[in-house]
């Protein structure tokens, strides 16, 4: 999932899923052991509990962001912050449990009347929706509206370019385009609506994690007659507690006011405390941080922590420690070892052994940046075992003897030459690459660093198969956050052979291992989450054995928690505060 920041505008954005993350985050994180009781909570309290709990309603909740929404249309967005934010006006079939801590990523019904019921092999899912759900104009929301919302978001002839394509990949549906022909849903039979309150999804394969996809904004209802294609984002028809107040002005502002037709009794996840929600767009990150700390805005909408300047200021300021939260961002920073370029697994393992993880971790910011990662799955994901380390070394400085042995095994006893691709805008990526370059030189592996613009990194360079082969790009520095917090939601896109694309390729190492692929498929046929978690742990180990991905850091983010904000807690599913719970108390 994308975090955010300048996308399009260069920095940041972790695609939900995407890569992104890396950039944005200049935001390291505060030292975890800092104490202090000032402010409305204690240091890092918001990571595990609700801070400043209150049911006080009213007031205007003020957000600000530098870069724009990718789209306010719930059918056409992939930024983590907007998956969180769009819930103000777009209800989804399912939702993440609105509470902090270990149960935060469990699923509960939102518009649904209960959890989806699968058939025996998880290829058919039936969801009932509640009766009496209404749009902002008072008309009733039907199952057909949800079917249409999903159809238009994935089957539109390519006009929506932002959102994920999970429905397209998994629905048992022939080619379809809702914008062709007079009846948009004629021939769209992969989702059936036997009555106004039932949806039956027919999938083309077993997909035990399908309910996670039903939390995504693409499941928001869209009335067919209101759909204006990409222009729909100007005024999305609300199904949630707030509706657009006037039109969305790209690059300038989005204001929401209460939707009188929303019934709180039907909604288990939205507190809807403020009377208004306002987003100022186009405010520079430094200015956002300044306003946040001064109380002029309540929340940084981007949700990927304070910028580097404010980070440095806050970390050492005792008076604000009680206003800081320092959770794991949910993302992994890592280096792809491109299997078609460095074909011999022993050569890749030599790199894994030679890498000085300690210095790479320091390059990423040391203590304040996060923890050294030696496995694939981040700590919050079931099946993660951060203790496992297939390439151990003293103080994580690298095991040069083992590296040399591996080099001999792969027939390159004197080392070899290769290239590392980095995103030039991300200072930490570049420093990570430099540190890797130095440590590899110790065993004769000469790696040259090649810098590319972040905006085209996956489209034209590291994620382009042709470019990688023609230019002998053996490694690339990357980062990834989960589309949803499970092993599949996190790692399938970066390690499943079927995810390899010619361009825009996020399985950048091009790992296509039959055993790994088989385990992914097996997981999707496994109902029990605990059993799935153990499969994900096996995949983690296999990917490490294949030396396709070199984990660097599980990074942490530093959030400033405003004094006037109520009901604040970190929701790991969105990798930021849960916007739906927030209220303001101006005292």
């Amino acid at each position: 999932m994308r975090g955010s920041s300048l996308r399009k505008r260069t920095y940041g954005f972790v695609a939900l899923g995407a890569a992104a993350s890396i950039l944005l985050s200049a935001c390291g994180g505060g030292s975890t052991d800092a104490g202090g009781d000032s402010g409305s909570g204690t240091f890092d309290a918001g990571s595990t509990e609700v801070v400043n709990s209150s049911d006080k309603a009213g007031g205007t909740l003020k957000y600000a962001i530098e870069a724009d929404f990718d789209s306010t249309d719930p059918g056409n967005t992939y930024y983590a912050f907007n998956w969180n934010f769009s819930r103000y006006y777009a209800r989804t079939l399912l939702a993440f449990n609105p509470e902090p801590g270990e149960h935060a990523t469990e699923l509960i019904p939102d518009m649904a009347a209960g959890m989806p019921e699968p058939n025996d092999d998880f290829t058919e899912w039936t969801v009932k929706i509640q009766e009496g759900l209404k749009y902002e104009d008072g008309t009733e929301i039907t199952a057909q509206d949800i079917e249409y919302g999903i159809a238009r978001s994935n089957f539109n002839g390519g006009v929506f370019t932002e959102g994920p394509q999970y429905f397209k990949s998994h629905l048992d549906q022939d080619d379809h385009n809702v914008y062709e022909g007079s009846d948009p849903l004629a021939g769209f039979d992969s989702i059936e609506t036997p009555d106004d309150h039932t949806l039956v999804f027919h999938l083309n394969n077993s997909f035990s994690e399908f309910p996670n996809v039903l939390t995504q904004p693409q499941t928001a209802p869209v009335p067919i007659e209101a759909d204006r294609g990409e222009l729909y984002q100007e005024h999305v028809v609300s199904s949630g507690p707030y509706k657009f107040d006037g039109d969305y002005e790209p690059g300038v502002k989005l204001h929401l006011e209460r939707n009188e037709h929303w019934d709180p009794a039907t909604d288990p996840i939205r507190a809807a405390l403020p009377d208004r929600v306002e987003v100022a767009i186009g405010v520079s990150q430094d200015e956002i941080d300044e306003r946040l700390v001064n109380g002029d805005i309540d929340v940084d909408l981007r949700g990927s922590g304070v910028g580097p300047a404010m980070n440095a200021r806050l970390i050492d300021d005792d008076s604000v420690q009680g206003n800081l939260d320092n959770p794991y961002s949910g993302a992994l920073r890592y280096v792809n070892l491109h299997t078609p370029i460095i074909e011999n697994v022993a050569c890749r393992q030599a790199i894994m052994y030679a890498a000085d993880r300690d210095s790479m971790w320091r390059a990423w910011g040391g203590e304040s940046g996060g923890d050294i990662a030696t496995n694939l799955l981040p700590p919050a994901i079931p099946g993660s075992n951060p203790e496992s380390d297939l390439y151990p070394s003293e103080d994580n400085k690298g095991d040069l003897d083992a590296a040399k042995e591996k080099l001999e095994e792969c027939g390159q006893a004197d080392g070899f030459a290769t290239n590392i691709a980095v995103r030039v805008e991300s200072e930490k990526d570049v420093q990570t690459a430099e540190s890797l370059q130095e440590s590899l030189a110790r065993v004769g592996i000469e790696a040259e660093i090649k810098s590319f613009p972040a905006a085209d990194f996956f489209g034209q360079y590291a994620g382009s198969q042709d470019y990688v082969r023609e230019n002998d790009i053996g490694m690339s520095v990357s980062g990834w956050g989960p589309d949803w917090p499970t092993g599949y939601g996190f790692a399938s896109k970066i390690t499943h052979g079927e995810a390899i694309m010619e361009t825009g390729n996020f399985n950048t190492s091009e790992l296509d291992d039959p055993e790994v692929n088989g385990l992914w498929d097996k997981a999707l046929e496994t109902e029990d989450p605990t059993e799935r978690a153990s499969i994900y742990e096996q995949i983690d180990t296999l990917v490490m054995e294949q030396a396709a991905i070199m984990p660097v850091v599980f990074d942490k983010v530093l959030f400033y928690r405003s004094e006037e904000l109520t009901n604040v807690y970190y929701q790991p599913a969105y990798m930021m505060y849960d916007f739906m719970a927030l209220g303001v108390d101006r005292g």
Partner: protein
Amino acid sequence: MLNYILRRLGAGLLLLAVVTAVTFWIFYVLPRWAGVTPQGMAAMYVGKAPTPEALAATVERLGLDEPVAVQFVEFVRSLLFGQEFTFGRETVECAAPCLGYSFTTNSPVLPQLLDRLPVTLSLGFGAAVIWVIGGVAVGVLSAVKKGSFFDRLAMGTALVGVSLPIYFTGLLALAFLVHEWELFPISRYVPFTENPVAWFQVMFLPWVTLAFLHAAQYARQTRAGMLEVLGEDYIRTARAKGLSERRVIFKHALRPTLTPIVTILGLDIGLVLGGAILTETVFSLNGVGAYAIDSIVSKDLPVILGVTLMGAIFIVICNLVVDLLYPVLDPRVRIAG
């Protein structure tokens, strides 16, 4: 006179055509020479995980696989005659002059530009008033009191003004005047028509910051010009006639000094209206400049073309106005019909 204006307008149009062609060439042709494929160009417009279908649809919508000449003709045609875009089941007409549609912000370019223009106009003209009055006044005083303490102080300050970039003075002003001492409100543009007082309060700091940079140049220029003119024979004659010093300075010395000032003013205003990128970015004003920088960063080609064209139009217009002002300021100048 009319003949002159028409000729100048014709030359201006020609200039705009050249600017359009060059900009088009830079952003559409150069990437091709660098080996970027139509799909690669399309990838700039689609999200982080583009499907081949979305790429193909974008290539077709933008005509990226057409020969460049065809694309250019299409662009000019939609500029002159408008164009139609299809959204979902809806067809929307983009009336001439249609600058195209941004697939990054999912909105047509011209209305976006026009929405943001009031911010930039407010910034540009407000700042210009301050820098012209301030700069010229200081320049005249410095020239008249040449070598005095005031002169040295003023010219020293001017040197500082010319040397300090906006992102330094602007951030300093924000840090202290807005955040630390709270003397000014948080900058968020309020339209003049909505609340003139709030508009003034919000725009004041950006005006002063932008004006400080320019006023310094104007003060130095005015001082130099005045000193030169004050040594002219006709000034001595005017003084010999017994005219008051005030009349000598303001009626006879200042007017010719203003000619070069107005020349640079025309260019400066044109430039600022084309987008005061630094000032708008520092003060988080959503003007044309901020739109320009967003579009450059995201390689939003239709917006880049639109902003460039608008900037060029402002420069052409401002220059024309300046040329028409010359004879009014300096009786020695005559426009040849």
